[in-house]
């Protein structure tokens, strides 16, 4: 490494100053290749004709400076330093005829290629970002009447769903007062009107059931309704003294007859 130091001493003071400035910025580098690319700019030549030997020197000066300043460098920076040291020695020594690996020049050319490629990508990225961008320079329709907004939602229900729903309501509502079906209801007023006309024919005891209107004796609900209405009607007539009522025993037929003199 003392050899490296002597190399480093050959750098101009300006170069040394520049590499020290770089150290301050060490966190800003995106890896050793990025650092090498920055260092290569000091050579102010086409990357294809860059002196890799010189670049290797600059890099090693950078690493040494960082070490002197007790700056922790990431491992990949040190790996690169080791590789550059190896490359440098290969470049300086005459080629070994027995070595069938890549030549030092090939390795150097590859490093130059890598740098050039990275530089090219960096420029391409800059050009890309400088393009007119959607939402910044170019704009899409502000009120997209997009099809997604016009998406038709179809609601589905099967007959079973419908039946279940109805069944659910009906089971839920067993205790709901049932909507009166007027067709099946015989009111007391109706029965009273009717009985007033009929009692004239009830000279003798007759069952109340025989006074029920036609068509109201088969259907159970109709029968119950008319029976109740007529029962209430004859109670009213009895109260007014127009009829007499009798019932032999509990649950036996109720009988009525016209009260004489009424």
């Amino acid at each position, binding site marked *: 490494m003392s050899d490296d130091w002597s190399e480093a001493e050959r750098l101009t003071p300006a170069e040394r100053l520049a590499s020290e400035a770089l150290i301050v910025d060490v966190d800003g580098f995106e890896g050793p290749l990025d650092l090498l690319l920055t260092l290569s700019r000091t050579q102010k030549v086409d990357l294809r004709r860059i002196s890799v030997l010189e670049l290797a020197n600059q890099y090693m000066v950078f690493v040494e400076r960082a070490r002197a300043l007790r700056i922790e460098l990431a491992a990949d920076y040190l790996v690169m330093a080791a590789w550059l040291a190896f490359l440098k020695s290969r470049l300086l020594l005459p080629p070994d005829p027995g070595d069938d690996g890549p030549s030092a020049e090939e390795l150097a050319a590859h490093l130059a290629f890598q740098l050039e490629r990275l530089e090219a990508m960096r420029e391409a990225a800059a050009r890309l970002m400088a393009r007119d961008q959607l939402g910044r320079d170019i*704009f*899409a*329709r*502000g*009120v997209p*009447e*997009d*099809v*997604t907004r*016009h*998406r*038709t*939602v*179809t*609601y*589905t*229900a*099967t*007959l079973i*769903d*419908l*039946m*279940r*729903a*109805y*069944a*659910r*309501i*009906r*089971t*839920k*509502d*067993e205790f*709901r007062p*049932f*909507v009166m*079906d007027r*067709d*099946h209801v015989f009111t007391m007023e109706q029965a009273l009107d009717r009985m007033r006309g009929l009692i004239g024919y009830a000279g003798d005891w007759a069952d109340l059931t025989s006074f029920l209107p036609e068509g109201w004796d088969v259907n*159970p*609900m109709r029968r119950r309704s008319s029976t109740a209405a007529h029962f209430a009607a004859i109670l009213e007539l009895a109260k007014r003294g127009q009829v007499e009522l009798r019932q032999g025993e509990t649950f036996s037929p109720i009988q009525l007859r016209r009260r004489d003199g009424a």
Partner: protein
Amino acid sequence: MTDTPEPIEKTLFEAPPMGEQERMVEAILFASADPVTVSELQARMPHGCDPAEALVHLRKRYEGRGVHLVRVGDAHAFRTAADLGHLLQKETVEQRKLSRAAIETLAIVAYHQPVTRAEIEEIRGVAVSRGTIDQLLELDWIRLGRRRMTPGRPVTFVVTEHFLDHFGLESARDLPGLKELRAAGLLDNRPLPGSMQKQDDEDEATTGQSELFED
């Protein structure tokens, strides 16, 4: 020359040509999320522009096109030509289940039609939201029937042909009765107190219902 002196401002801050102003208005209206007023246009465009005039030109340019320049209150916006609206409806059919309220309401209309909103509410035991009725109307499953000849003359609802079609029914009379619902096990899940006595009621209900559909 002295009679009509050119205002100095005009020469100093020359407005872009009208064609250019038209392009500006076009781009602003296109990109804006809301309709844009003339004064908003003016504020965005270079000094001396006449957006009102540019709008006139632009409107003419889009006449008969697939997109029109329309006036929305005080503002202006691009809108799809009315006759092409159907192209924007991509058939992404998303199937959703009807809400419980909606299906119950529908069932009541089907079984009790013609039925008023108050009657639906009485049967369901809860208020029926406007939205539920609207949804069913929109789906074309129910429609307005004749007004009920009772105080207030409330509107009634009946099911539509489309409803019958959707549910594969020839007529509303084909709806399974309560007996069939019970037979299908749909009513049996909750034996109720006094269910013996209810049996009659149920029969009654079936009868009543068939009468209901007779007219």
